[in-house]
């Protein structure tokens, strides 16, 4: 198999050199002025041989992996040689090789951007397909309004109520609770950092503090999760004990506060951008009226930057809802319907992980429930992202 790939690659390289030479030789013997530089004849040969050969090769591997090596080799070699014959005849000095190469290059580049669309389509198709199968078994109304979430029972076929309980409301409230805690931490702190760095700090402080805050964004989420488990959870537990109530190590507040720390740089750098985009003349106008720095910042700069800051907050919310590892490790797994952040909760992402890790059959309502949750997650974050990106773009246009 690797031999075939090597053969195809060699055919491309060989085609390049032979066609380039052919173009040069023909030009010098016939005396016709070349339209394209010789290299373009080579590139054209490379593309002409490469594309069909690799297509044939991939088709063979996908649909007839057991085909005898000799036949496979013959097919690949025939394609390569045939295409080479075409390319070789085309390598005449008056042939407009460059135009053709450039057209192929443009098409190839276009194909790259189509991959982005295909990815989105793939996500939507796979989530929808499994979700529709899921909703054939569990009614969407039960899923979206049911108060009991215990998909585990679906595994025990002999039990009563074997379909399990797929009321996802506790999962949604848990997600919301963790997100709320995260935003309460990250929102004000991220915003204050942005305001301080853009309005109060001098250049030197800014050049040191900004990268340090950005470090928080570069730390992998699994590290935050372990930090929640190792340090923050036990601290909150000890705090609860000292205040006379019981707080488990894994709780909404443990996961939410760690997540908040993770999101601080997102809020601060996005807000920083929008605050910096507020024209200096607006500040100067405010100072000219005798306003203090605080009054200028809060009444003029903040007010002007508000839409952009809103956008930053919405993106932060979307990020918090989709975050997985921190909640998997620090929020617990119990599907409690509660508004108390000191209790263990479960979230959409945690449930997706819980339902799909380990050895599973992929045709039960239990695994399909994960895709239904994924669909909800995708739709909500999509709406939030589009909304936020729109605000931010409109805001930018306003001051540009």
């Amino acid at each position, binding site marked *: 198999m690797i031999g075939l790939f090597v053969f195809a690659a060699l055919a491309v390289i060989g085609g390049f050199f032979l066609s380039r030479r052919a173009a040069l030789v023909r030009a010098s013997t016939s005396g016709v002025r070349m339209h394209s530089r010789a290299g373009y004849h080579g590139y054209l040969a490379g593309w002409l041989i490469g594309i069909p050969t690799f297509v044939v090769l991939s088709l063979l591997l996908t649909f007839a992996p057991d085909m005898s090596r000799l036949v496979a080799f013959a097919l690949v070699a025939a394609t390569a040689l045939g295409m080479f014959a075409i390319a070789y005849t085309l390598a005449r000095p008056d042939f407009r090789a460059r135009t053709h*190469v450039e057209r192929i*290059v443009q098409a190839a580049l276009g194909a790259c951007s189509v991959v982005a669309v295909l*990815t989105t389509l793939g996500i939507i198709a796979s989530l929808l397909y499994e979700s529709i199968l899921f909703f054939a078994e569990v009614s969407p109304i039960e899923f979206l309004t049911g108060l009991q979430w215990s998909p585990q029972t679906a595994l025990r076929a002999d039990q009563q109520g074997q379909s399990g309980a797929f009321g996802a409301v506790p999962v949604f409230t848990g997600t919301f609770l963790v997100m709320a805690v995260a935003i309460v931490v990250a929102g004000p702190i991220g915003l204050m950092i942005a305001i301080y760095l853009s309005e109060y700090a001098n250049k030197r402080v800014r050049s040191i503090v900004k990268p340090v805050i950005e470090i928080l964004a570069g730390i992998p*989420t699994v590290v935050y999760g372990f930090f929640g488990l190792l340090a923050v959870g036990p601290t909150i537990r000890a705090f609860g004990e000292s205040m006379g109530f019981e707080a488990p190590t894994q709780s909404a507040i443990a996961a939410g506060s760690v997540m908040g720390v993770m999101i601080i740089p997102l809020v601060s750098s996005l807000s920083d951008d929008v605050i910096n985009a507020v024209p200096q003349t607006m500040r100067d106008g405010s100072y000219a009226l005798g306003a203090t720095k605080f009054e200028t910042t809060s009444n003029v700069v903040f007010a002007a930057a508000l839409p952009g800051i809103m956008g930053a907050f919405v993106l932060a919310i979307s990020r918090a809802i989709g975050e997985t590892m921190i909640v998997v490790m620090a929020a617990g797994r119990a599907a409690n319907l509660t508004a108390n952040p000191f209790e263990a909760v479960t979230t959409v992402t945690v449930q997706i992980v819980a339902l799909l890790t380990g050895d599973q059959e992929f045709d039960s309502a239990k695994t399909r429930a994960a895709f239904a949750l994924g669909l909800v997650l995708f739709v909500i974050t999509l709406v939030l992202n589009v909304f936020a990106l729109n605000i931010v773009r409109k805001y930018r246009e306003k001051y540009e």
Partner: protein
Amino acid sequence: MSSGSPHTTARAVAMLKKRRRANSVFHALGVAAIAFAIAALVWLMSSIVGTGISAFTQNVITFEVVLDEEELDPSGERDPDALRLANYRAVVQDALYERFDVGDDRQRRQEAFGLVSTSGATDIIRQQVFTDPSLVGTTMTVTAPVSDDLDQYLKGNLTTDIDESLRRVSDNQIAWAQELKASGEIKSQFNWTLFTAPDSRDPELAGVAGAIVGSLLTMLVTFVLAFPLGVGAAVYLEEYAPKNRMTDFVEININNLAAVPSIVFGLLGLAVFLNFFGMPRSAPLVGGIVLAFMTFPTIMIATRAALKAVPSGIYDGALSLGASHTQAVFHHKLPNAAPGILTGSIIGMARALGETAPLLMIGMVAFVTEIPSSITEPASALPVQIFLWSDSAEVAWEERTSAAILILLAFMIVINGAAIWLRSKLEKRW
């Protein structure tokens, strides 16, 4: 100051004082916010370094083992299969019973045997005897890791001020360990196992080598796919695409793709590549593909920014000398944008290296005790290994999880450092 000015009345002065106080309170709040963020970072780093640092050393015990022929190879034929399956556990037990003179007391026997890593010691002896069968019948000096509980005790990670029955190490074991430490039979050495071994059920034998190789293979696939696709799509949208509804749609699509939760990409990988195309579970190939989908928008956005930053004079200059549009883009714009593209891609790859959730979806959480050698073999990845270890109950896993995190962070620092260095080295100011 003139007395007639409304700005000098008592009320105005009091108000001004208040306004200035509000300003300084606000200023202090800004400082406090920064202090909070930095304190959180320091707390995170110090708690992980604090628990992880001790995992870089490991206590080993040296003892003599009599390789009794009766026990290991009663037939006397030195048959390789017999030697592989021989009862090395028994000779280790005998050696330790002898060393601590425990007699027939079951309790003390268990305690003596519990000092050493069972699989660690037997593996070492098996390996030696297998390569040199003439060792059977002789006495051999073995240096093996101590058991994970004793190791934790010796590192001071276990409290001993609770009742003996609740403890993971007994009084006898503590006494023996102190004695052995004094005589040099137990000593602490650098924990090479952590770097050279794959995963294991026993913390004292577990390492991150398999996970690192798995991560590298995954990153390789990710880079090979995401880099050309990301740069290609960016060049198309920035330089070729007509401005119409279609390209607007693609653009919104890509911006949105960069903000899709990572776990959704895992669901895509599971549904499309595992269930539909039937690709192997737990393989770096699928992991790499899934991470490539995530990384490609990042690379694309960075490439577009880099292309935008190249002054138009360069492109116009190329055109005026007779270059075609494609020649101007590929021969002049792209090379000038290369530093930006490179740093953006490196940062995107660093993010992919730390990503865990999508890999859980495609089964890279499997317990893999071998170092993978190809992209289709089951493998783990470093962040997934961290997640798996953090989930394990024994105390010894805690320090190893932290140590694995330190190794992952070291990779991150190197990669991001490389990006910063490249940027400062190659960046052009126009």
